[in-house]
């Protein structure tokens, strides 16, 4: 069974809440309109379609848009050797969606990471603590409105943070076939940072 066939079966089973399968570079993505049905869809994908392995859960901050969050589930079937991506939107006011821990136990730490870094809570998670930052850290650092340099905090006896001096940074590297001088991380203005364009200061005339 291919990924597209699996996606179509999910579409047949759940109807309107599932988008048409989108293909990009041979990979299939589905969008789930109703996040509350997430566990049912995931259960169907695992039990009926054989997606026995949850590779990863990631989250996207569409800052300035509504809904703000997109949570992405990367499913893999070790039986059929196919991958499928399942996306669902979460609004900023809600900032919560059901935990898929009852489907794949490996979701435990992924969901803790999403809670820690992005501040999206997974309802039904038995142990929703921070996983990278410490308990009591007041921010969610991967949000787009959180500065890369960080914000000052102090939790006596646990940890403190300070604002990092950026010195004109962030220092960005670019994928290029040129030498290591062109690849070197440096301060780049946005027009330099277009994909595929190397550092304009180094382009040979």
């Amino acid at each position, binding site marked *: 069974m291919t990924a597209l066939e699996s996606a179509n079966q999910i579409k047949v089973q759940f109807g309107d809440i599932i988008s048409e399968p989108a293909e990009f570079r041979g990979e299939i993505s589905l969008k789930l309109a109703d996040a509350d049905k997430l566990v049912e869809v995931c259960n169907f994908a695992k039990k009926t379609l054989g997606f026995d392995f949850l590779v990863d859960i990631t989250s996207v901050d569409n800052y300035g848009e509504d809904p703000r969050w997109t949570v992405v589930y990367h499913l893999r079937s070790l039986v059929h050797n196919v991958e499928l991506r399942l996306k669902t939107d979460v609004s900023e006011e809600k900032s919560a969606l059901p935990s898929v821990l009852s489907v794949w136990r490996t979701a435990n730490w992924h969901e803790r990471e999403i809670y820690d870094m992005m501040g999206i809570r997974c309802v039904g998670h038995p142990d929703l603590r921070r996983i990278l930052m410490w308990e009591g850290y007041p921010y969610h650092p991967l949000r787009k409105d959180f500065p890369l340099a960080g914000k000052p905090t102090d939790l006596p006896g646990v940890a403190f943070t300070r604002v*990092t001096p950026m010195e004109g940074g962030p220092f960005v590297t670019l994928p290029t076939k040129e030498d290591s001088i062109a690849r070197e991380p440096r301060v780049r203005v946005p027009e330099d940072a277009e994909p595929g364009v190397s550092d304009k200061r180094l382009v040979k005339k």
Partner: protein
Amino acid sequence: MQSEYAYDSKIEGDVIVTRVDAALNWFRANSVWPMPMGLACCAIELMAVGASRFDISRFGSEVMRFSPRQSDCMIVAGTVTYKMAACVKRIYDQMSEPKWVIAMGACASTGGMYRSYATLQGVDNIIPVDVYVSGCPPRPEAVLDALMKLQGKIKKEPVLQDLVALKPLLGQNQ
């Protein structure tokens, strides 16, 4: 006839006369037991320093102690995150005097390439550093060079003066 209790120069070599300061510093400098604070990839290079090719035991520092109570020099090898900073400070505080610190590599010295919300910008923000080693990670030779620099520093320390200054703090019986 020579008494068996007398000094036998044939067996025990020549007498060396020195200052107590110099002797104490000589002991200290040639048995600096490191506390390997391995936090990232620098720790791998630190292992190479301890292994046969580079062989830190040539400098009397092969005794890597994983207890701060038994070690003299903390080698901070790697990225110090804010989450780890409190632990590094605590382990440093648990080390007994005299103690020294080598900041190994760009991350431990300045935060290195990690200019972000999560990384302490140099371990000298929380503990005093004696020697900074550049590199990402540094070559093992650079760590040995840092150790030799530290030995040079130890040999110049006014040990007796420090001990006399400490005496009031140590109580009457010391």
